[in-house]
């Protein structure tokens, strides 16, 4: 019986070794270790042995079973790993194939510029003020020190609807309205919006465009505050190394009036095609609020002063992104729009 057992063991170990996959090995397990297997049969047949041999044989059978089991498990581990490897091999994909597209849209480039400016001024304590695009002559001109008969308000330059109603030519009427509403209280606002002028559309003109203006009114607001504010703006929008310069200019609603240039962000000031070899780029107009404008809105111009500035997001976007034709902003060619998708910081 002992020999029989040894033969069985040898046979089992051979079969374990020969099993090629998990399934075959499982068959071996059932064949040799299962309830109907020969080892179980041997154990069952022990009852026929003399009582003194039983412990010895029992131990022997257990040793054989242990050995077969151990071998089987080891073999099983190998085969399982082999099976996994085969499965992995079969499951290889071409990871260079394109992913399932996630459709993402994006903001219009002008919105992008306007929001960047809005957010910068919000961080400096400004609020956003908005107003109608179809405006009364009073708010668009008169309240801004542009009385009737002033050359700057020629019918030729504005889209009038009636004698007294027109499409606003700038966002300044929002300033006039805000001042009137605030009843003499300090103000810190940014006014973005669409404006309209009677221009023929071409590469640099558009009958509809955007403006963003700012207005600060308070006690002891100085021209140096305007310069400091614009300097922060220029550095945030165009880079920390930007310098600004103010040049005297004229607007009916401010006195003194200035135009602001920034040092060229392309060449840094040495002269290039962007700055037309001057090293400077004109960005915006600004000034100290004209006392007539303050008084007309009910502000005491002896006690309060203010500054205002205004710029064109189209111009800024054209400079920033190198866009050569203003009409791109209104054509909505998706090959243009979709370029303004990624972050820039």
């Amino acid at each position, binding site marked *: 019986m002992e020999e029989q057992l040894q033969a069985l063991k040898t046979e089992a170990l051979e079969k374990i070794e020969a099993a090629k996959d998990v399934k075959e090995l499982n068959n071996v397990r059932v064949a040799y270790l299962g309830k109907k297997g020969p080892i179980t049969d041997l154990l069952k047949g022990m009852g026929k042995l003399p009582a003194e041999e039983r412990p010895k044989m029992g131990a022997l059978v257990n040793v054989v079973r242990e050995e077969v089991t151990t071998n089987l498990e080891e073999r099983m581990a190998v085969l399982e790993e082999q099976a996994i490897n085969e499965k992995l091999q079969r499951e290889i994909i071409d990871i260079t194939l394109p992913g399932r597209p996630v459709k993402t849209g994006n903001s219009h480039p002008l919105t992008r510029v306007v929001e960047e400016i*809005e957010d910068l001024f919000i961080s400096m304590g400004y609020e956003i003020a908005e107003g109608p695009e179809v405006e009364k002559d009073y708010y668009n001109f008169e309240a801004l020190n542009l009385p009737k008969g002033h050359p700057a308000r020629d019918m030729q330059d504005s889209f009038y609807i009636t004698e007294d109603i027109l499409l606003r030519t700038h966002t300044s009427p929002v300033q006039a309205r805000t001042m009137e509403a605030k009843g003499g209280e300090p103000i810190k606002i940014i006014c973005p919006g669409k404006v309209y002028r009677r221009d023929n559309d071409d590469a640099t003109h558009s009958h509809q465009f955007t403006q963003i203006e700012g207005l600060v009114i308070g006690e002891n607001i100085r021209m140096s505050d305007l310069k400091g504010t614009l300097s922060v703006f220029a550095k945030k929008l165009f880079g920390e190394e930007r310098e600004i310069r103010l040049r005297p200019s004229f607007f009916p609603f401010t006195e*003194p009036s200035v135009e602001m240039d920034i040092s060229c962000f392309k060449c840094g000031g040495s002269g290039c095609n962007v700055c037309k070899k001057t090293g400077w780029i004109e960005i915006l107009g600004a000034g100290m609020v004209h006392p007539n404008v303050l008084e007309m809105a009910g502000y005491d111009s002896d006690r309060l002063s203010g500054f205002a500035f205004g710029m064109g997001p189209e111009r800024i976007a054209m400079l920033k992104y190198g866009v050569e034709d203003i009409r791109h902003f209104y*054509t909505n060619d998706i090959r243009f729009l979709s370029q303004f998708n990624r972050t820039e910081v």
Partner: protein
Amino acid sequence: MLVSIKWLKDYVNTQDLPADELGEKITRAGIEVDAVIDRSEGLSNIVVGYVESCEKHPQADKLSICQVNVGDETDQIICGAPNIAAGQKVIVARPGARLPGGMKIKKAKLRGEVSNGMICSLQELGIEGKLVPKAYAEGIYVLPEEAEIGSDVITNFDLDDTVLELGLTPNRADAMSMLGVAYEVGAILEEEVKLPEISYPEAEQTAESMLTLQVDAPEANPLYAAKVVRNIKVKESPMWLQQRLMAAGVRPHNNVVDVTNYILMEYGQPLHAFDYDALGTGNITVRLAKKNEKITTLDDTERTLSPHQLVITNGEVPVALAGVMGGADSEVSDSTTTVVIESAYFASSSIRETSKNHGLRSDASSRYEKGVDPNRVIPAAERAAQLLSELADGEVLAGSVIFDELDKEEKIVTVSPDFINSRLGMKIPFEEMLDILKRLQFNTEAANGQLVISVPTRRQDIQIEEDVVEEIARLYGYDEIPATLPETEAAPGGLTPYQAKRRIVRNYMEGAGLLQATTYSLTSEKSATQFALTETDVTKLLMPMSEERSVLRQSLLPHLVESVSYNTARRMDSVALYEVGSVFLKTDDELLNEEEHLALAMTGLWLDNSWQGEKKPVDFFVAKGIVEGLAEKLGVQLEFERGEMNDLHPGRTAFIMMDGRRVGVMGQLHPSEQKQRDLKTTIVMELNLAALLSVETEALVYTPVPRYPSISRDIALVLSKIVEAGTIETVIRNAGGKLLKDVRVFDLYEGDKLEEGKKSVAFSLTYFDPEKTLTDEEVTAVHEKVLSALTEVGAELRS
């Protein structure tokens, strides 16, 4: 304003600064120099030649063979100009000469004859054709007798000059004259201004003896001065005068007209010369025109006048449109011997009106419109008398004929140095301020620590303290202003809830895969109301530039769909755009109701993942899903009702409702509209965004995460095709009560396996009780109710 630096030097020392450096200084002080133009750019080796003989070229009709003395030798030059003749002094570009545009003159053969250079027109020297005197416009320019043969044309005729082109802001009318620019440059460079010295011999006879004057409209014409000059010889002006005019952008005519134009440029004071004999009456009367009175102006146009227009008459008929243009009948001609020189002050409003009515703008009218210096009117007349005496051999009658009620007082502006410094945020010393005012030649007294400034009448723009602040600051230098930030209360800035939500809407739309578009607010009358949610009367412009942009839009969609077509026409077949913008609706009020809307338009494929077999064309439900997601994001309840609208597919259109109110529309474009716009299936949507965003949403409070499981039951129903799933869903929800948490359509079948006219819709119902685990019995009880409600409305369970 074009400023010749050579001419400017008559009045102020420019310290021989290079032109661009001078230009930069002027720009930084407030008058922008738009261009620096070197008049001799590209010119060299150009001399005065004397045409000794001139014969026809034997081989060419239009060419002449000239022997030209160029000083050191006599050269043969072939010339094609029709006005070439022997005995002329001409401009010769010798071999090796350079002309503008990089042209280089070489010895050449023309039809077999040698040509040693070129005889030049002024255009060939780079002078604009419209500035060349008419006599020489079609040919070569003939130099005056006294030109020295062989001498350099560039230096002898002032072409070695640089012109600064000033871009003047409307407030700086003072700089529309050489003297005004001289004052500005003088202030910048700290130099004195030298005014022209005026002296001339006067005849014994007085001007008043030949001319009487009456002004009937003193408000429009508070000052009128006239000089009478006799025995003048009308001829060409000397070269220096012609060159100065051309440098200033004025075409030379004859010495009389040139003198008036010269003084216009020098003083900024418009003058007019009448032929005294042509006036015929020895009288000038200034009055308002009579109705339908007529005048033929210098441009040979007959103009009908109206009663508010100021005219100069000879006491009988109009002879000039005051301050705008003279009349043809009294124009100075070659045969004129006596002239009346008018120098007047006309009110700017009167001139603006007349100029606008007749669509006539002249150098004179543009200066009057902005206001001339009251104190230069009479000196300008004197200056004219002097120049006519010198250049036209005229005999100036004694005195002037004058009507004068004009206030010529200087305005006094009092300002404190503290005010100036506090406005600027600077500490400019008092002495420095005085010095700047002195440089500007503003007479200033310091009284009680205040600056009491007499502003010269040439500077009409200085009216209030703030104007003085600007003068001080610009000459002190804007670079000196420090950079500070406002010392205001630190209040937090931010967006209003509306503005914040609008950004959320935009971010949502972009996250959903749409590109933001921006279209025009102005449209054609035809498109103005297409797709309008609320249609009102249209709002038209008074003076549109084109029919396409003549009316304000009442819907964003026409232009947005146009943008989609623009893209598909360029072979971008899949387009998804959205726009946020206002539509303009008429109200009873003066102003319009500007309603902010959100629109979308999409066509082509929504999902294109072909290699994995996924391809989803845009359809109604793609857009509807976007709207539903938006409603969820904004916390508002939107419902969809079948609707109809022109140009939308009648079976694929829905109105979007909020609290029973129509706030939007969506649908597929009508096939004929699609065809007309050359589009495939295109889905559009427009929402009254303002209505959505003005809903105040409730505070967000969390609902506990479910602790008990929910139970689902699926049912498939056979319905008549005309019954809408939404109706059935409502029946289910009503019957399901509190325990029915969710109802979802998960299948739709319309095919052969069903009776004609039937469809099968499968719903998944989710039951849930937040308090406990539902038992099967409880669910069955509710579900049975649902089923019987469905049976009642004729929905059969599909077996």
